Structures are given as C-alpha cells and as structure tokens.
C-alpha cells in the first residue's frame, strides 16, 4: 500500500487475536504460549537469582525480590486471609500474581505486545484453579456439608426468607465468583488490546493511506490518543493482576473464615 492511494480501512476485531503457529505444523505453539512460557522462565530466573545468595544486607536483586514477595504476602495474603493461616497460600498467590502480571505487562513490551489473557481460555484456567483451591480448603476445614452450609446460609436473614435467599447465596458464592474472576481479567485485556489496535491502526490508516490532508491531521491526534491509551493500559494490566489475586485471597479467606 503506497501513500496517497485511498484503500479500504479494515477495523481490528477478534480476528487480530488469532496468531499463526510459530513453528509450522505445531498448531498449539502460538504467541500466547510462547509469552506464557517466557514469563515462567523470567519469574524463575528472577526469584531464584533473588534468593540464591540471601544476605542480611541484600543485593539489589534480592531487595527487589523481597519487595515483590513481601507485597503479595503482607498486602494481599495476610490482609485477606488473616495472620493465622495466610502463609500456606502465599506460594500460590505469589506465583499467580507474578504470572498474571508478567503476561499482562507483556502486552506493553515492544515486539511481544500481546496480552496472553486476552484469550479467554487462559483466564478460565486461572479462575478454575483459584476456584478449586478455595473450595477445597473450605471443604477441608469444615467438611463437605459444613462448607456447603457456610457458603449458602446468609447471615442475619430471617428464617422465613431463607428458602428464597439460599439459592442467591449459592449462586453468588459458588457460580458467579469463578465467572466474574475470569471474565474481568479476560475482558480487560481483550478490550485494552483492541482499543490500542483501533487507535494505532486507525491513526496509521488516516495518516498514510487515506490520502486526505484533513484525515492526516486527525490521524496524528489519534496516534497521540493511542499513546495515552498505552499508558492507561500499563496501569490496567497491573491493577487486573492485583485484583485477580486479591479476590482469590479473599475467597480463600471467606472459605476458611469461622463465622460468616
């Protein structure tokens, strides 16, 4: 496509999220898989390096590692689960947080620029994992029937309203939670990425391909907006990783809480 020759603008859509296999013939090995695998390597390298030579006076890497770990342990796990039981869940929450964080932030790293969790399947698996864990620890703590009662009996409701309220409590505690966990993460990553594509591809089209001076000016503004959206996205990526893990911790906390 050469400059000045008007061509049709093709709006970005879900088709932009279908990436071809990196190696021909290996259909499952696509960009999200590569990004996820890379993120695991980076996380292992980072925390291994940070903890290998643990010293009283920490090196920079060790300090960064402790900062990240302490953030998850103190600000997420201990606050949501309580200082009694939280240590058991710190490894899972820490791994989950940094995995989601790295895969989200990958969307803003040049050359990678793809949010793994914009494919709903990744978000489903993460949510199902959390769902299984908090239900399992709740059942382990209270027994199957006790946990079920704990999760379906709303506190403070008059007895005559119970039959109408128990289904609501069940649905919101057992069914809505994993759905909202996964959809929130997936939809934020998907929407953010497609918004960026609209601004950047739209700007590119208007400046270079529309062949109209006026549209070229608008295109420059569109590019600048895209830049602003990219900054906003960086914020959203971090927030979504945080929210996912905070809610997981809170669900674990509520599953093992003594009173409702």
């Amino acid at each position, binding site marked *: 496509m050469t400059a000045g020759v008007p061509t049709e603008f093709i709006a970005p859509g879900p088709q932009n999220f279908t990436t071809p296999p990196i190696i021909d013939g290996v259909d499952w090995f696509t960009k999200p898989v590569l990004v996820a695998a890379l993120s695991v390597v980076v996380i292992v390298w980072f925390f291994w390096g940070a903890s290998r030579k643990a010293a009283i006076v920490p090196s920079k890497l060790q300090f960064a590692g402790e900062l990240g770990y302490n953030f998850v342990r103190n600000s997420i796990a201990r606050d949501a689960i309580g200082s009694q039981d939280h240590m058991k869940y710190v490894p899972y929450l820490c791994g989950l947080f940094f995995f989601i964080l790295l895969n989200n932030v990958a969307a803003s790293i040049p050359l990678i620029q793809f949010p793994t969790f914009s494919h709903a399947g990744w978000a489903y698996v993460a949510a199902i994992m959390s769902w299984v864990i908090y239900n399992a620890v709740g059942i382990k703590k209270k027994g199957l029937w006790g946990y079920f009662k704990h999760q379906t009996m709303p506190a403070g409701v008059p007895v005559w309203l119970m039959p109408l*309220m128990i289904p*609501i409590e069940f649905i919101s505690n057992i069914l809505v939670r994993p759905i909202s966990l996964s959809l929130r993460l997936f939809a934020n990553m998907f929407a953010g990425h497609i918004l960026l594509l609209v601004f950047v591809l739209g700007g590119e089209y208007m400046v270079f391909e529309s062949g109209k001076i006026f549209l070229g000016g608008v295109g420059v503004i569109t590019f600048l907006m895209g830049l602003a959206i990219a900054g906003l996205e960086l914020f959203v990526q971090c927030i979504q990783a945080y929210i996912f893990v905070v*809610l997981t911790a809170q669900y674990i906390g509520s599953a093992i809480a003594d009173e409702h």
Partner: protein
Amino acid sequence: MSENQDPKPSPPNSGDGWRVLSYLIGGVALYGGIGFGLDRLFGTQFLLPVGIVLGAGLTILMLHFRYGSRS
C-alpha cells in the same frame, strides 16, 4: 523487612464491593432465569421481568439484612 512486624489489622470489609456485585448478579440471574423458564413453560411473557425485579428486590433485602445493621 520492617513490614513483617507491623501488626496491621486486616480490613474485614475490603471485599464487600465485589461481593455485593456478585449478589446482585446472582439474584437477578437466578430469579430472572426462573421467570424466563416459566415463561417458556406457560407461554406467557410477564414472568421474566417479574423474576428480574423479584431477584433484585430479594438481593437488596438480603444486603440490607447482611450489611444494613453495620454502623
């Protein structure tokens, strides 16, 4: 690090916002769904909106019982 010794009490209500949201979704989805099913069963048209309103009302009532007494 120094945060380790900090005996900060955990905020017990920090997840309430999301919980309220999931109650509202759950209540409306459940009773709206029942209304939808009954509509299909009897060939009527008014039970879906009735179910949605009933679900929303019951959810708000439950939120009142759960959280309303807190000062």
